[in-house]
């Protein structure tokens, strides 16, 4: 298992960096928010990976099971998922509002209109 010991973390870092790349390279505001959500979901995977114990069971107590995975990351991430969706909703509504005012959601177009004022 030692060869794969850090595999989960490296994949998570790759996923985080794809989300980060979408946020900083894309000019489209909707795509930026999708990138942010990709980043968020990969952080969730990082936390849940940290909570996993090999051969452990899900943290629901029952007869005959001695070893359970750590329940605390699960609690944190349950909260984070719901908060993440509410921030996504707020961000998307800002995008819709920007579209109403500027008629565009491309960053370059918005900057151009700001400069021409």
């Amino acid at each position, binding site marked *: *298992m*030692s060869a*794969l*010991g*850090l595999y989960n*973390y*490296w*994949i998570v*870092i*790759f*996923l985080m*960096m*794809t*989300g*980060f*790349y979408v946020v*900083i*390279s894309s*000019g*489209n*505001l909707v*795509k930026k*928010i*999708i*990138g942010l*959500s*990709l980043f968020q*979901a*990969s952080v*969730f*995977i990082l936390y*849940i990976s940290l*909570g*996993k*114990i090999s051969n*452990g*069971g*899900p*943290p629901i*107590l029952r007869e005959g099971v001695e*070893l359970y*995975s750590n*329940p*605390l990351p*699960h*609690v944190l*991430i*349950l*909260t984070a*998922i*719901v908060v993440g*969706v*509410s921030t*996504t909703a*707020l961000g998307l*509504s800002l995008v*819709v*509002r920007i579209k109403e005012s500027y008629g565009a*959601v*491309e960053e370059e177009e918005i900057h151009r209109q700001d400069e021409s004022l």
Partner: protein
Amino acid sequence: MIAEIINVVLLGLLVITAVAAIRLHDLFAVVMVFGIYSFLAATVFVVLDAVDVAFTEAAVGAGISTILMLATISLVGRWERRPAHRPFLPILVVVVTGGALVYGTLDMPNFGEQSTPVHEHIAPYYLEQSKSDIGIPNVVTSVLASYRGYDTLGELTVIFTAGIGVLGILGIRRRREEKNSEG
């Protein structure tokens, strides 16, 4: 062992969907890929024993987020403008950040290891005591709704604030326009 193989395969699929999300310029397709990504993440959570997180991610992450994004692209348009120049600077920033993070993981305990500080502190208390303290078998629910009930109330405050924010951003202007059209 089978669970580990499934874990590796699912994470590989996540990488493919994430790369697809970068390469596509049709936002409808990107949103669909994001839905697949969230659902794959939910299946990874099942493999990693986080069943409560899995169904929340499937319902809220893959469901509600996708619907919100589809509603947004129906209002703002479906096509992303292709970038005019090669994004060398973003690639550099991402590679440097990723390298620093990989360097940070080298000191981390191996995946699935049992005798790490994070598993020997606090978590055993909840696993041993929550049955007699709260009386239900699901430890995650015990912590979320009872031990940390006030934090969950705080979470509801965040959702409420976000809801008011969305109404404030989208609602007020509509009403003003209606008033103008009447006058």
